[in-house]
């Protein structure tokens, strides 16, 4: 009988060892208990990049984030929006509790500038979260942003087109977002240190005037 470990066994041992060290990744509560319960550390990964792949714009893909952004902003950190395709609408954001004085809007002229600005912002300890909408991005770009987020202890959010779900990505967390009658269906496609494959129903902020 061979005493050598298979690669698979070795990988499991490494994972177990990691787990036993209690090295849980830091996380910030999402404001949605059902989502927190499915994410390692109980929330959005801090010091990491998360990708959101939304079927459409306007299904609550931003409202899903507003609670964590507000939490980070109230803790004194800034939220950088890098070249959003639409205007972040101040009255709507303020109504959802986001302190506007912590919001930074960075406009760029190219994808290259956007990636550069996102990396700089993620590295800055004063920044809590960076939101980006890269039209096209490769693994190497994501990895760079991932390292920047680790260095800055910030949360990187990349909105990517639904087709991106077909490819793999080095992002720590990947969520697919589908419209649902009562809010949003969140499918966990990849979750570092957690379990992927589940779909959660989340009631995002109300959309209709009272």
């Amino acid at each position: 009988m061979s005493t050598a470990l298979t690669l698979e066994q070795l990988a499991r041992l490494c994972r177990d060892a990691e787990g036993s060290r209690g090295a849980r990744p830091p996380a910030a509560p999402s404001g949605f208990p059902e989502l927190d319960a499915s994410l390692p550390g109980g929330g959005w990964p801090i010091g990491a990049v998360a990708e959101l792949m939304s079927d459409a714009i306007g299904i609550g893909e931003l409202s899903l984030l507003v609670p964590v952004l507000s939490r980070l902003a109230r803790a004194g950190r800034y939220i950088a929006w890098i070249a959003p395709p639409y205007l972040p609408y101040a009255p709507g954001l303020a109504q959802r509790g986001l302190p506007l004085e912590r919001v930074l809007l960075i406009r760029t002229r190219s994808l290259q500038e956007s990636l550069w600005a996102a990396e700089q912002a993620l590295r800055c300890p004063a920044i809590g979260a960076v939101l980006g909408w890269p039209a096209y991005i490769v693994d190497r770009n994501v990895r760079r942003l991932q390292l920047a987020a680790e260095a800055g202890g910030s949360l990187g959010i990349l909105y990517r087109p639904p087709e991106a779900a077909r490819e793999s990505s080095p992002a720590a967390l990947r969520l697919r977002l589908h419209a649902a009658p009562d809010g949003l269906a969140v499918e966990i496609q990849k979750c570092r240190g957690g379990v992927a494959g589940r779909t959660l129903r989340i009631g995002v902020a109300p959309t209709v005037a009272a």
Partner: protein
Amino acid sequence: MSAALWLCIRLPQLAQQALAAIPEHSANIEDAAARRTAIERAAMERLAAWAYQWSSLLSYRLADEPLLWLEFGASRALFGGHAALLAKIEAGLTQLGYSHACALAPSPAGAALLTLVEQERCVSTRSQLRARLQMLPLSLLALPQEVLAALHSAGLRRIGQVLALPAAAIARRFGPDSNLYLRRLCGAASDPRPAWRIPAIYRARCEFGSEVRDTTALLFPLRRLLLEFQGYLRGRDCAVLRFTLQFEHYRHPASSVTIGMSAPARDAAQFLLLARERLQELLLPAPVSALCLQALEFTAASVVQTDFFGSDAQQLQQLQLLLDRLQARLGDAQVLRVQTEADHRPERAWRLITRQQPAAATDTAAPARPCTLLHNPRRIEPPALLLSGPERIESGWWDGADASRDYYVAGAEDGARLWVFQDLAEGAWYLQGLWS
């Protein structure tokens, strides 16, 4: 009796090293000498401004090998303090890229002489200085060649032997100037020097021997200019909000960029970072023949953020560094904040403001609003599915941009919720926002 000590810095290759590139061709000898002096003077002026951070009393002399003197007052009583300071200054000179020899002595002439010896270049008292000079060859003395030759033919070999001669004999035999020099060398006679005055505005120019075509090749001379500038700012105990870099070209008007900071700063590393971002974006119309750094306005250093280290202050400083970098590369108008405005019209209920503008208090009184707005309302077909509404908004008649609209939340086929309105005047439907 003064307890002052003089640090002398000999800069044997100042002219060559001041040029960021080697000249391609040399003109006739006279022109070359004049040019060399001009380059040395410019470099020495910059170095003096840099050295002002260590001493407010300094002077220089452009000889065969340029010399810069810094006086250290009696306050720095411990010789150990001087050693640490000397190490700092030498490290600084190396960073600037200048070959140098430093010596410390209680007289300027003594310090200058000791820069020529290989070791034991620091003495703190006059008796130590005399003892140190004793065995050194008399050729090191800054006396006219014929005087040195005469001393040599008289059988003298060491400085100690010369100093042992009666002063009156030296004055009679070699002239009063030689006698005065020897007395000054030992610190026995006062040696007043024209004190260098720190300029009220900063303008430093760095000439290149040949044209520089690539902006990255400008980084080395730029780094040196910025380090020297940092020394000037420290010496004056002040900071800047902006400075200008000017690029001179042959046969082309100079181009310039202004580097601005959000808070007063005086850190060369920070300046370089910002300048670098700018240089990457800069398209120079022609190769660069010289680089100038200019600063006209200064603020007190007491408001420099780097000088205190509360966590909030530190965070603010980090943020300012980030925003300065972003602005340097992307442009001033690209880094913005948002705020609400008291206007019923949704497109006027918010505003983009620059970093420096003060933000108004947030107004959240309106009915529910989406997080995402289109830059301009987009004409659409009448929506098939209206989920809620209408909310009537009528306003703006007083400023000519009057609006009379009914707003609805509409459902799209892909599940998106749209913020739409019908213009009551023309009956058309528009998409204005998304319930993202």
